[in-house]
């Protein structure tokens, strides 16, 4: 399958831009912190997709190794982030980010 030869790289750039903007919209749109986390994952995946597309385009495996490292960081980020969320839920009784607008009290 030589998709990168039959489909222009422009299409992948557009697809990644749309997915990234959906992620940005999710971060701005929702108040539930878990959904915001999921939108951040969506943004990371949009960038990953573009990295793989360009790695295929330039015939360079370094792009795919980079995607591997992005996945590593995303996994660590989710583990710590969800632990913080559970702690926030224990203290405030909700995962609403508008409740967390002050650091004191």
């Amino acid at each position: 399958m030589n998709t990168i030869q039959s489909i222009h790289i422009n299409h992948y750039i557009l697809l990644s831009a749309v997915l990234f903007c959906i992620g940005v919209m999710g971060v701005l749109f929702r108040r539930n912190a878990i959904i915001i986390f999921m939108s951040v994952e969506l943004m990371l995946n949009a960038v990953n997709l573009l990295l793989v597309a360009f790695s295929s385009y330039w015939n360079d495996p370094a792009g795919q190794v980079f995607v591997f490292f992005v996945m590593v960081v995303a996994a660590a980020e989710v583990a710590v982030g969800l632990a913080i969320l559970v702690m926030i839920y224990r203290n405030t009784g909700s995962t609403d980010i508008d409740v967390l607008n002050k650091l004191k009290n």
Partner: protein
Amino acid sequence: MTIYLFYFLSFLAILCGLMVVLEKNPVHSVLYLIITFFAIAGHYILLNAQFLAVVHVIVYAGAIMVLFLFVIMLLNLNKETEPHKTNLVKFAAVISAGLLLVVLVAALRGTESLPSPSTINADMGLVKNLGKVLFNQFLLPFETASLLFLAAMVGAVMLGKRDIK
């Protein structure tokens, strides 16, 4: 054939990505995000990145989304307890995301003149080739990633403890 597959997977990814944001129930959002991740894994296979496709399904659909589902079910979040922003803020969010898309597309407008690649190495995404690159050129970052995971694990356990002395 692959062109139709590309358009189908792109449509699926964008539609389910939108549903993640617009769906009221957090559990349904997680399920839509899993479909999006499978569509992206399909894209990886089309791009000859077989190893990454498998790792993507295992790490994202298998580990991260299960973690999300566990937390949502532990915290007992559902449609009734879901907080919502006012319609004005929602409208502003859609407008700003749309404007960002316009800016991105406009900034990347010259890319349609890029030539198609002449040579293709179909075996590049296999474990054999990626492993060679990962353990020669990127050995230090790989080892640092293990340190990052250790720190993340210690941090998650510390945060999860009920009372820290």
